[in-house]
């Protein structure tokens, strides 16, 4: 049944983001025409638009995740969702997976938008652009760029961190929306949802920040390698480019998982469809 839930969830939630993706595709196509035809004003205009679109994609996706979750479960559509012959945990899991998918896709598309802006700048600036690399060489910053394998490991680490923070965001959003739609709070679900989110997310991140600095578990990066250290996050070690405390991220991701389990429990036992 999870496969069927995923299929239908993808279909339902896709409507929310498809418009902004279409707008992005149109702007990118227009920019490509500008680059190919070497019409400067098109490239400049599209660069500005793409910067806005990159931000808009992330915002629209976030709103879509909240809206789709709320509407499909806690409005009249809940009569359809909650009477399906599936467990509430499956219903929740399908929504988490698809939200995760849309957010990641939006991050990728937003990243591509920024890359397109860079590409356009390169096309516009021509040789002046390569001068930037000369500047890097002259300032000595180029020596600080990690080797290929290290860079790949840093990127992989960054991707894992981003994924964990996306999971965290989804977990806190779903928890807040669900709490706000329990019987005592559903009269003012928007207000309570917002308060719950801001409160829980704020407290969660305050603890997370404290743990990031105080827990002796960190990742350090030098120009040669990336490694794990059972030490507090530190600045300016020997050959060290930076280090990053893992305690906070692990805490907030575990908190989000806990909240998702709790959300599933509330959906199973306490939800009261209006």
């Amino acid at each position, binding site marked *: 049944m999870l496969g069927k839930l995923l299929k239908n969830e993808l279909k339902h939630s896709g409507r929310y983001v498809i418009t902004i993706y279409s707008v992005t595709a149109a702007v990118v196509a227009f920019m490509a025409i500008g680059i190919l035809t070497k019409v400067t004003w098109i490239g400049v205009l599209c660069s500005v638009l793409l910067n806005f679109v990159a931000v808009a994609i992330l915002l629209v996706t976030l709103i879509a995740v909240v809206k789709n979750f709320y509407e499909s479960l806690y409005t009249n559509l809940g*009569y359809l969702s*909650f009477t399906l012959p599936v467990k509430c945990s499956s219903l929740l899991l399908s929504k988490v997976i698809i939200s995760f998918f849309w957010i990641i896709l939006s991050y990728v598309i937003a990243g591509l938008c920024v890359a397109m802006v860079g590409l356009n700048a390169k096309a516009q600036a021509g040789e002046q652009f390569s001068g930037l690399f000369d500047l890097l060489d002259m300032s000595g910053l180029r020596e600080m760029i990690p080797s290929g394998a290290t860079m790949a490991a840093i990127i992989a680490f960054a991707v894992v961190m981003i994924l964990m923070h996306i999971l965290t965001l989804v977990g806190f959003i779903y928890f807040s929306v669900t709490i706000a739609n329990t019987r005592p709070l559903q009269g003012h679900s928007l207000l309570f949802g917002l308060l719950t989110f801001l409160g829980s997310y704020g407290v969660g991140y305050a603890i997370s920040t404290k743990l990031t600095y105080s827990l002796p578990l960190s990742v350090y990066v030098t120009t040669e390698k990336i490694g794990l250290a059972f030490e507090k996050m530190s600045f300016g070690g020997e050959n060290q480019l930076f280090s990053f405390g893992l305690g906070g991220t692990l805490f907030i991701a575990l908190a989000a998982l806990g909240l998702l389990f709790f959300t599933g429990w509330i959906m199973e036992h306490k939800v*009261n469809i209006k």
Partner: protein
Amino acid sequence: MENIITVENLKKSYGRHVVLDGVSFSAEQGQIIGLLGPNGCGKTTLIKILTGLIKDQTGVVRIDNEEPGAYTKSLIAYLPEKTYLPGWMRPIDAINYFADFYKDFDREKALSMVSRFGLDARQRTKTMSKGQQEKLRLALVLCRNARLYILDEPLGGVDPAARAKILELIMENHAENATVLISTHLISDVEYIFDRVLMIKDGHVIVDSHVNALRENGKTVEEVFKEVFSYAW
């Protein structure tokens, strides 16, 4: 005959307001039961509990000897009072959706019924009239070969001429040997199809009787209902 519904000492409150206060009844397979009572008497709450939409009640609720959950939801074809299809959905989408999740859903019959109702399978529900939407929801429910049909006010929003047609459809299309629980306050229109009636007042079942037993006293279900609820209509 085996019981499809067993309810014992069911209690449910919304804050201090008690909606169901020790409700007990059972339903055998194959019966058509009228769930009757004035607005706010707890009919919809009882239905929501049976369908698993409310879980924080106390007492015993069993559908085919199981507590409400994924299994019991697969047995129940439920027609809520509210419109529950998203506006972007078209009849063909709704049919595919039901076919995906309910093994007992007859897709071909649904397509044929939608066509018989004069509905366009490609028209979005948000552009349909209320009556068209009700027809679609009814088709989705009646095209399941369910063990238990729960219909909450199926005649609520339709004109008197259409009511007879809807009842005819329900009688013709519900699965053989299935139990049908119909909540309504339009008793005169529907009472002839009932085998049994449950009347709820102030959270209690005050009448649980076979229709024939009521009629032996020379009264219609509606007359009994008026007596019980002391209505001066």
